[in-house]
Structure formats: structure tokens, C-alpha cells
């Protein structure tokens, strides 16, 4: 059941994104930035957590989940460390993926030629 919910919710977010790209002047980059901000703000308002509880990866995997993870990390680190957490928390949850992205992107760029 949770797979079906993840499929439907994740798919719906992507379909709305496609609608925004097709009907407005938004580029992909604008859309991604907008969704990240939306996720971060919704997480701060306490709305994203219940949503993610319900939708699982359907809420986590779209970039909104990335934004929400930034805020979530800041809030939890804030509690643990005090004001430093406002800064270190940004990479508390996302840092693993970011560093992995940097490492693997570099490896592939050094190993493989782009194909057209």
C-alpha cells in the first residue's frame, strides 16, 4: 500500500511541476528552487512532517523533501547544539547525499565522456 501512495503522491508532485513548466515561463531550475523553498518553509511550519509520515518516499524523494530535510536538520541540531545548529543543521541530513553526489559526479566526469 505504501508503494502505491508513494507512486501517487510523488507522481502528482511531478505532474504539477510539469504543468507549471508548460503553462508558465518557469525553467527547470526555477521550479527546483521553488520546490526546495516550499519544502523548507512547510517543514518549518510543521506541515511537511505529517505529510511525509503519510506519503513516505513520495514526499521525501521530490526536491521538496530535500528542502524539508534542511529545515528538519536545523531544528534538531538547534536543540542539540544551540545557535550553532542553525548553520550546521543544514547538512545534518542532506550532507550525506550532497557529499555522495559530489564524489560520484566527479568520478563519473573523470571516467566517462558525455554521450550525445
Amino acid at each position: 500500500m505504501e508503494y502505491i501512495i508513494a507512486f501517487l503522491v510523488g507522481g502528482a508532485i511531478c505532474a504539477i511541476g510539469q504543468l507549471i513548466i508548460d503553462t508558465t515561463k518557469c525553467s527547470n531550475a526555477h521550479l527546483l528552487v521553488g520546490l526546495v523553498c516550499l519544502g523548507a518553509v512547510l517543514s518549518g511550519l510543521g506541515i511537511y512532517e505529517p505529510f511525509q509520515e503519510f506519503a513516505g518516499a513520495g514526499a521525501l524523494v521530490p526536491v521538496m523533501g530535500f528542502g524539508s530535510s534542511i529545515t528538519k536538520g536545523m531544528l534538531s541540531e538547534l536543540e542539540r547544539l544551540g545557535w550553532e545548529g542553525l548553520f550546521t543543521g543544514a547538512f545534518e541530513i542532506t550532507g550525506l547525499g550532497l557529499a555522495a553526489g559530489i564524489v560520484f559526479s566527479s568520478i563519473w566526469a573523470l571516467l566517462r565522456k558525455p554521450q550525445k
Partner: protein
Amino acid sequence: MKPQEYQKLVQDNSPPRPIFKNMLWAFFVGGVICTVGQVVLNIASKVENTKAEASAVTLAVMILIGTVLTAFGVYDELAEKGGAGAAVPITGFANTMTSAAMEFRREGVLLGMAAKMFVIAGPVIVFGILSGFIVTLIKVLILKLL
């Protein structure tokens, strides 16, 4: 002809974008990626102790999948069909990093690969952190004052 007139001419004569079909493809491709993410999340939840760790591992695994699919040219085809369905999931974020790194590798490792890797991912990180920072700060201030 004025630029505006020309633009209108182009707009009138270009075929209408198949909005519904595009949305359907985005829905399908995005849905499949999120379903794969759910499989990863379920496994990560079993292995890791906390929800935050499970989320972190899931994001990282999806990013890894995104970079691999990009390196072997699979993701470009997905993006062609799926549009936002391929761009919006975190795998699309990884795709922008890897494809930019591979593309600009010929301009050098330092100023090509490393610098251009974040040409789209950079704004996403910057604005993600800025909005997260602001909303967290406001939340803390309100909680302190009340």
C-alpha cells in the same frame, strides 16, 4: 517587425504543447522514481536507527542512482520523456550535478568540472538553506518570545 510581433508569430505557429500528455508522463516517471525511493526507504528504515538517518541514507542512495543513470546516458532519455517527472525527484538534482560535471570536464578539472558541477544544484542548495534558515530563525524567535 518588432521583437514582440515576432515572438507572437512564433508562438502562434509553433505546435501547442501537449500539456496533458506531458503531465501524464511526468506523473508516471516521477511516480516510478518515488516508488523506488520507497523501497530504499523501507530498507534504510530497517538498517538505520532513527528516521533522520533513514531519510539521509535514502536521499544519498537516490542521488547515487541518479549519478549512475546519468553517467550511462539513461537519465537523459528519462528526462526527455518524463520532463519534470525526471527533474523534480532528488535523482534529477543528482543528474544536474553529474551531467554538468561531465559536460564541462573538457574545460578543465578545476574551472570546468568542479566549478560547473553546481550550475543548477548551487541555486537549489543556496535557496534551500536560506529559506530553511529564515523559517527556523523565525520559529525559534517566536518560541522564545512566547
